[in-house]
């Protein structure tokens, strides 16, 4: 049986990012019609800053979702990295590039240590990263006693506030680099393909000669690195080394990939879809403020959004399964 050719429409429908992309577009158009200030340069700047940071956070979770696991420690790694970065600069006067390398190293090490335990013991990632969440957060608070570090270097502050051109913030640059890198990772790099293979069919992946342990450790290391980058971006954006950085990453880090079509059981992720997931969440958060909508409603809307995304993904999966069943029966 030769592979059947699909209509352009069907193929478009199969793309994870088309749906969220359309929703983002419609939301942007609708909100800017109702509130022209939405497209003002400053607002675009603000929106892009928020999107940039949240995208990197979401990517950090996306790697692990691709593997079919979850990383609850994402936020606490980000927080630990953020305060370590500002801390070593403030306390020991370490030059910024060195501090940067040190901080990113902490992120990678934190991620990899969790990955190592998961790979070696095969205890569920949920429990190990839950323990990691407590440990990293505890170390964070133990060091800072919950007081922020203020000694953020001017260069870093400027980075968080400056724009590249027009309303586009510099924060977009690390976000773009991370996104492109992750796209390459998932689509073109050996390790990324192995992560997805492990996520789709761990048994097959292992029998095919993929080193499962190395793949798991890599994935968690990459996740830690992205959490670290996001933490540092937040330091630049907030202009302060806050110990609370990362506390509220959990929900949105899952929501954006899921809205973007990722399947929690693994093997199926979309960087572009995740991007639009982040955009949708950012637009809704901002739209609710703009239109002076009760802040209490925000939570409800976010929850409903996740359910909606889940329903859409589910319908699509069922449709694909039906098409395949028909193909097999023929």
């Amino acid at each position, binding site marked *: 049986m030769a592979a059947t050719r699909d209509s352009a429409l069907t193929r478009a429908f199969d793309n994870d990012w088309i749906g969220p992309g359309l929703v983002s577009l419609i939301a942007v158009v609708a909100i800017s019609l109702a*509130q022209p*200030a*939405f497209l*003002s340069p*400053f*607002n675009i*700047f*603000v*929106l892009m*800053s*928020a999107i940039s940071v949240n995208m990197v956070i979401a990517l950090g979770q996306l790697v692990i979702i691709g593997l079919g696991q979850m990383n609850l420690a994402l936020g606490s790694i980000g927080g630990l990295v953020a305060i370590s970065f500002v801390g070593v600069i403030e306390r020991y006067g370490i030059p910024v590039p060195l501090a940067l390398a040190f901080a990113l190293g902490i992120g990678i090490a934190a991620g990899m240590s969790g990955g190592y335990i998961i790979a070696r013991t095969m205890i569920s990632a949920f429990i190990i990263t839950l323990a990691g969440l407590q440990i990293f957060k*505890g170390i964070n*608070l133990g060091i800072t*006693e*919950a*007081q*922020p570090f*203020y000694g953020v270097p001017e260069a870093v502050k400027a980075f968080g*506030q400056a724009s590249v051109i027009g309303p586009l913030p510099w924060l977009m640059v690390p976000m773009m680099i991370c996104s492109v890198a992750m796209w390459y990772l998932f689509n073109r790099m050996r390790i990324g393909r192995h992560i997805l293979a492990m996520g789709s069919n761990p048994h097959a992946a292992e029998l095919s000669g993929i080193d499962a342990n190395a793949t798991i450790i890599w994935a968690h290391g990459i996740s830690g690195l992205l959490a670290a980058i996001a933490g540092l971006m*937040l330091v630049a*954006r*907030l*202009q*302060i080394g*806050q*110990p*609370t*950085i990362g*506390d*509220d990453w959990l929900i949105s880090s899952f929501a954006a990939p899921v809205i973007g079509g990722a399947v929690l059981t693994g093997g199926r992720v979309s960087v572009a879809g995740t991007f639009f997931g982040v955009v949708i969440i*950012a637009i809704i*958060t*901002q739209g609710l*403020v*703009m239109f*002076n909508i009760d*802040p*209490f409603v925000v939570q409800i809307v976010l929850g409903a959004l996740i359910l909606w995304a889940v329903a859409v993904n589910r319908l699509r999966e069922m449709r694909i399964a039906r098409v395949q069943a028909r193909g097999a029966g023929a």
Partner: protein
Amino acid sequence: MKMISKAAAALLLGTFVCVPALADEGTMVALVPGGPHPYFAAWEQAGADAKKEFGLGAADYRVPAKWELNLQSQLLESLLTQGYNSFLIFPGDAVGTTSVAQELVDNGAQVIATAGCLKDPSPALFCLGTDTGNSAYLGAKELIRAMGGKGKIAHFTGFLVDPNTQLRIDAVQKAADETNGAVEVVQVIADIDAPQPAEEKINAYLAANAAGVDGIITTAWVPAVVAANSLRKIGDKRIKMVGIDHDEVVIKAIADGFVDGTMLQNPYGQGFIGSYVLNRLRTGCTLKEDGPWKSNALTVRFVDSGTVFVDQATAPTYVNAMVGITADLLAGFEKDFLTCS
């Protein structure tokens, strides 16, 4: 399991030596905020100074690891077990903290609600704090003055679950109402006492509405910091702003002219005076039932720890302003509120 027991044993033996003996009686003050927050940082110094000044057994600043009602309760219960007998507590919840305070009192300790009040009826001796409503009201008045008596105000404030938040919202509204319509509060953004959401929401608001707003008042620490940064970022000196508290960022923005002033509260004074009063009450003094107690929305036994507005001129020396009001309050406290034998 063997591993665990070994680890636990090692840990226990290792830390055994640092268990303090607290058998010695005396006034053992614990200063316990609701959770970690920069506002309370001054309490640590205040406690240490009070211990030296008044010869207390202890005056320790002990912070729950997170803003969790339950963690604060656990900490308070443990502190009581550790032998502390006098507590300055910022209630994690105006209602929810009442029962643990009651327990402390039932076990012979004394409690002053500090920096925030417990809702009556409560076992606290009294509430020592900023009159948040009044502070917000005065701040709003200062803002309205800076705005030239008319315009539109946006109000950024803290957690909706914080009892003070509603008081502040009402007070700002009251100041605006007194202008007979010349000033209007166009938006209240609440629940943003954490950096990331504050950043997102305040910026989003300013992005869309900067042109439609003439003044900003912030009545919580984080929103003040974030709003000050935002105004600096847009380089806007047209919009007037009055902040709260003494974060470096806010003080610097005042000096640079992006913010018009800030309402200083007096955390140091609260810790220092609170420790003093608790010691006096343990050493023969009683509270005067007919003292000049103020009342607010939560309690009828309220003592204002003072609030002061600093602007561009006074900002560099804001510490003096705080020391000043503390000294004033301390000087008159025994006369006004205490009966000593």
